[in-house]
């Protein structure tokens, strides 16, 4: 056997291309609604099966989400499976079991959403950044890596079944207790948990509230700036879903009216 033949046979293939993953960073009062809206949109308009993990029981869709999806049918809502793990250990177990046949039949999920990562990662006392525990970084890495690896596996399953729902995507939300915005003359603070999450999530979707007086003057309850950043914006992982990457929107304005209506405006 020639050396060339063996070189071809034994060359390691790089790891499977990671799936599209996004981390929504900002106030959880808005990020939770945004994640629910994403789940509802994926289920109703794209026919995707969605796994939605959160600690807080959802009795009904918030008014803001209902107003954005007025024609939502019960059949579409059945495509969303809500799960309420109480601890990070339970969350890890539930995500790790998504490859089992009970979760992939008849169709595997193509969107995995985890709301409020900080409630799972930062312990029952809420933010523990003042007393940072190195184990929290490892836990954040484990959870993030498991989400990405699970999504990569489910993408393969979706492709093998020739479905049009692939790839499997991951969206999670995280509210940092550290103000990472740079104040003039002062170095910006870093959140050690967020630093770890950024290693695994390709795109960061930042929710930044506009606290100017113009919002109130316009009769709006709240105005938020939403912008995308991260290596996934210019990387190739999501490129195959975007025919025209130069036209990929990266900034929006979210207006929340007093009647809870949410309106997105492309900037």
């Amino acid at each position, binding site marked *: *056997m020639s*050396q060339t033949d*063996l*070189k071809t046979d*034994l*060359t*390691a*293939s*790089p*790891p*499977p291309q*990671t799936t599209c993953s996004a981390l929504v960073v900002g106030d959880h009062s808005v990020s939770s609604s945004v994640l629910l809206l994403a789940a509802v949109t994926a289920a109703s308009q794209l026919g995707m099966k969605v796994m939605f993990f959160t600690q807080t029981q959802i009795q009904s869709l918030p008014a803001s989400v209902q107003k954005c999806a007025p024609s939502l049918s019960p059949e579409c809502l059945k495509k969303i499976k809500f799960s309420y793990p109480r601890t990070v*250990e339970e969350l*890890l*177990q539930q*995500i*790790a*079991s998504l*490859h*089992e*046949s009970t979760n*992939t039949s008849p169709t595997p999920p193509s969107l995995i959403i985890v709301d409020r990562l900080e409630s799972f990662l930062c312990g029952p006392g809420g933010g523990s950044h003042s007393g940072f525990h*190195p*184990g929290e*970084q*490892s836990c954040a*890495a*484990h959870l*993030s*890596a*498991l989400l*990405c*690896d*699970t999504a*990569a*596996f489910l993408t*393969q*399953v979706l492709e093998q079944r020739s479905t049009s729902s692939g790839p499997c995507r991951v969206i999670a939300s995280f509210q940092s207790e550290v103000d990472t915005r740079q104040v003039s003359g002062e170095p910006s603070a870093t959140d*050690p948990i967020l630093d*770890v999450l950024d*290693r*695994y999530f390709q795109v960061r979707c930042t929710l930044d509230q506009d606290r100017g007086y113009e919002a109130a003057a316009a009769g709006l309850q709240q105005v938020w700036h939403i912008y995308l950043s991260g290596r996934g914006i210019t990387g190739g992982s999501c490129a195959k879903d975007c025919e025209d990457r130069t036209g990929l929107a990266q900034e929006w304005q979210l207006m929340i009216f007093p009647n809870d209506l949410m309106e997105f405006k492309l900037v």
Partner: protein
Amino acid sequence: MSSKVENTGVIAERADHGVTHVAVSLCSFQPVQNDLLCNVVMVKKNLKFVFGPCALQALDLVDQRSVTCLSSPSGRKAFQVMGGSGRLYTCFVSCHYCPCPAFAYTVLRRNEGLLCKHILAAYLCQAMGVTQQESVSDQQMSMLLSGTATP
């Protein structure tokens, strides 16, 4: 030095997650000769340049056949690496994570390393085709991936 590995090439590819994926291609297994021995030395030097001290430790794990590829009926796979202390570490096939203290401290906390010896050993074993194979049930795989399996 092992008499098995020779005429290797190291290809560095652009990273995901800020980590460089290294594809190590091997040619045939031949008796060690002077020129081939130089190639082996160069490969080890390249690995050490890219990955630091964990490179040689990873090669030791490779020599000890410490890496097992676990698979379950669903098709899910994971790597299981036997550390120097005899402890088993479960690593993912598509992204970098290891439950070992070195990954938590050197990679995550200090950002001083690209990956730990266990992850590198898994890649090297996979590239060299010396990974052990083992089948587990879907439930066992779930426990291993979640870190709740008894070591």
